[in-house]
């Protein structure tokens, strides 16, 4: 695959990822806010806006979402954390 085709494919993946994150954030109730430390607290619309802008907060939210989905895929969420840490 040429570099140009790879770039187009990566862009498409980023776009799809962004849409997935936004769609998942959209189920957050209107009265619920998310506190992200010093960054502040954000409601659903604000979070979606940050994801759209791809700024620091948007990137953090996307990272959490994608790592969480990966963990689900790997079945990590159903393993007791103490067991998988100690290997018991």
């Amino acid at each position, binding site marked *: 695959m040429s570099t140009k085709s790879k770039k187009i494919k990566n862009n498409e993946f980023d776009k799809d990822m962004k849409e997935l994150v936004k769609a*998942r*954030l959209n*189920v*957050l*109730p209107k*009265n*619920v*806010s*998310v*506190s*992200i*430390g*010093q*960054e*502040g*607290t954000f*409601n659903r619309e604000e979070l979606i806006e940050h994801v759209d802008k791809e700024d620091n907060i948007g990137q*953090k939210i996307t990272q*959490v*979402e994608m*790592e*969480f989905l990966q*963990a689900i895929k790997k079945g990590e*969420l*159903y393993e*007791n*954390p*103490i067991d998988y840490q100690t290997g018991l």
Partner: protein
Amino acid sequence: MKILLITRPDYDITTRYLSAWSKKVIELAEKKNVQVLDLKREKANPKELKSRILKMSPALIIFNGHGDNNCVTGYQDKILIQAGDNEELLESKIVYAVSCRSAAELGPKSIQAGALTYIGYTGDFIFCHDMNKITLPLNDKIVGLFLEPSNQVSISLIKGSTSQDATDRSKQFFWRNIQKMLSSEGTVESNQYAKYLWWNMKHQVCLGDNESTF
């Protein structure tokens, strides 16, 4: 008498929630005859912290507030402890920092400087809350999903558990809530809560002596 020092800056939404939910920890400590040095609001400043640590030598220090890789902050973001500056104040203490990322750099540096144990988070500490409950944070069931598990570190230490057991218990509480959120008991939005619970659980670490007790 055992002495516990706790910071509760309480000046924005995040620190208001952390401060309010820390009342449960303070109540338990007092019930167990632990002397509590409560640095609330303006008192959560570097001068007061240093003075109380040097005069009273608390064995357990709980930081509630904002933070970064190399620091934890108090009232109005004033830096309380910073790696490379004053982490030696934590020498021979058990520390639990409910703040973002401080276990990434400040934690290891504190251990190098002689802290017994540093329990904290290597990533951002993220929680969800109900905007309609801001004035009654202890009635907010959504935030309880997050702060009840994180409180387990302090509760277990006060009850005499080792640092590792306290961390394990906290992770068990996070995990239990994640399972609830992902089960049929959960609502449409539960998956969103599970995501941040998992994030906090994954980034909670116990550094230094994991057999230390308060």
